[in-house]
């Protein structure tokens, strides 16, 4: 026992699952960003014909789940588990999407780290021999997040320059025990880290230490250097969080080659005026399952470390003045 776990927090998969397909659905604003070409579907408007944005988000997630199976050309019924997470109270987007699909379902909450968390858990299920096909997915929606975490969507306010913009998007990947192509080779499960940030608009700052901790543990556990990877991509630290991450890593003697990026930074143009970039479960879900996965399939990237970052506060905890705990989960994908 214990042979798959290496060091403090890392799991090395013996039979790492193949990522055999990915599907992404993006909102209209994401569809105007630099990664537009990598998304499978771009919604024309944020409600997409539904009577509430919550229904839209759930529908997007459901569609992403169905399409990953479609693309891989396997019947949905042969999928063993559905793993999904989102930001809404009681993860209703995931629960409602899973209701429509009717497969064994494990709902996850890792805030914006949900995509990486679902991939880590999915890989464990397959490597452990508990199933052969797992769908890993996550979603977020700008308006549903806004009305839950902040203000009514039409309420006027000025967001701070370090604030981030919740992405409207749903993404999923299908993990399989057989196939060809990229494999999930390792996973590092993060610890909850709190450096005392209380400003809920500065989530990048709240999450950067947790991501740094996970990266450091990952590299230590596997005795790797950061330049082992072609790309180390964080979930949604945004431009402020990414800078902070690099500073913290530097202080912890991690040599930083020029291979760091962040999904939240990649997803929007600066002209889109989102301030520090994108956030939300959908951010890393659509950037990974779209843009990055396509690059991996095309052979442009061979080794990726993907670290989902989540800030684990709630509107209640924030109002009560609690600091923001955060987490980072890492999975490595190698061809």
């Amino acid at each position: 026992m214990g042979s798959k776990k290496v060091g403090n927090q890392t799991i090395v998969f013996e039979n790492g699952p193949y990522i055999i397909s990915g599907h992404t659905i993006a909102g209209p604003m994401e569809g105007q960003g630099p990664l537009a070409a990598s998304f499978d579907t771009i919604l024309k408007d944020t409600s997409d014909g539904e009577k509430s944005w919550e229904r839209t988000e759930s529908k997007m997630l459901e569609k992403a789940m169905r399409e990953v199976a479609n693309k891989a050309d396997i019947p949905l019924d042969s999928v063993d588990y559905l793993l999904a997470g989102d930001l809404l109270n009681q993860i209703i987007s995931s629960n409602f999407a899973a209701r429509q699909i009717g497969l064994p379902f494990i709902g996850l909450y890792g805030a914006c780290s949900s995509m990486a968390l679902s991939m880590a858990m999915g890989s464990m299920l397959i490597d452990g021999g508990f199933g052969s096909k797992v769908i890993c997915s996550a979603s977020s929606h700008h308006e549903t997040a806004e009305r839950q975490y902040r203000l009514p969507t039409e309420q006027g306010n000025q967001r701070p320059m370090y604030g981030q913009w919740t992405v409207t998007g749903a993404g999923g990947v299908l993990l399989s025990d057989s196939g060809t192509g990229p494999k999930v080779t390792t996973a590092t499960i993060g610890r909850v880290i709190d450096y005392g940030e209380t400003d809920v608009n500065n989530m990048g700052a709240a999450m950067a230490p947790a991501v740094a901790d996970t990266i450091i543990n990952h590299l230590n556990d596997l005795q790797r250097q950061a330049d082992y990877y072609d790309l180390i991509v964080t979930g949604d630290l945004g431009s402020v969080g990414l800078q902070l991450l690099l500073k913290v890593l530097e202080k912890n003697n991690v040599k930083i080659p020029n291979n760091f990026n962040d999904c939240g930074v990649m997803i929007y143009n600066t002209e889109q005026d989102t301030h520090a970039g994108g956030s939300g479960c959908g951010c890393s879900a659509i950037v990974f399952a779209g843009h990055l996965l396509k690059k991996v399939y095309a052979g442009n990237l061979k080794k990726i470390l993907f670290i989902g970052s989540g800030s684990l506060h709630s509107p209640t905890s924030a109002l009560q003045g609690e600091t923001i705990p955060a987490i980072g989960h890492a999975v490595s994908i190698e061809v």
Partner: protein
Amino acid sequence: MVKKDLRPPNLNITPEDYKELTTQLSPKPTLLKNTLLAFLIGGLICSIGQVFVNFYMIYGGLPPLSASTAGTASLIVIGAVLTGLGVYDDIVKVGGAGAILPVTGFANSMVSPAMEYKKEGYVFGVGAKLFSVAGPVLVYGISSSIVVGFIYYIVGLVR
């Protein structure tokens, strides 16, 4: 505010140093530009209000007090309509407090929850959450006016 009882992480940086680093790296608000825009947009909204007031006095024949009430009502209608059209939040993005403080901003803070929470029904949605933004303004606005009124009354008695 850094809590000491949280399990300390093993990162080689203290929460205090990290806080300083965060302050350094987080972009500051463009104060001068924001103030100037707030002045211009706020001034513009008030000027429009004044145009209405003058209009009601000169062409409507209203006495000054009624004219200013009518002018306020007109601004409220404009603020509400612009909120309904999804424009007012864009005006606030540029104008900041200059667009929040005038009565049009108050209309925005009433209409936006009404629109937003209609999906949760008229009782527990609109009814319960209509004042979710404007509520605190009303609570403390009315409370402080009572206090000031009381002081005014006392001062009147003494004189």
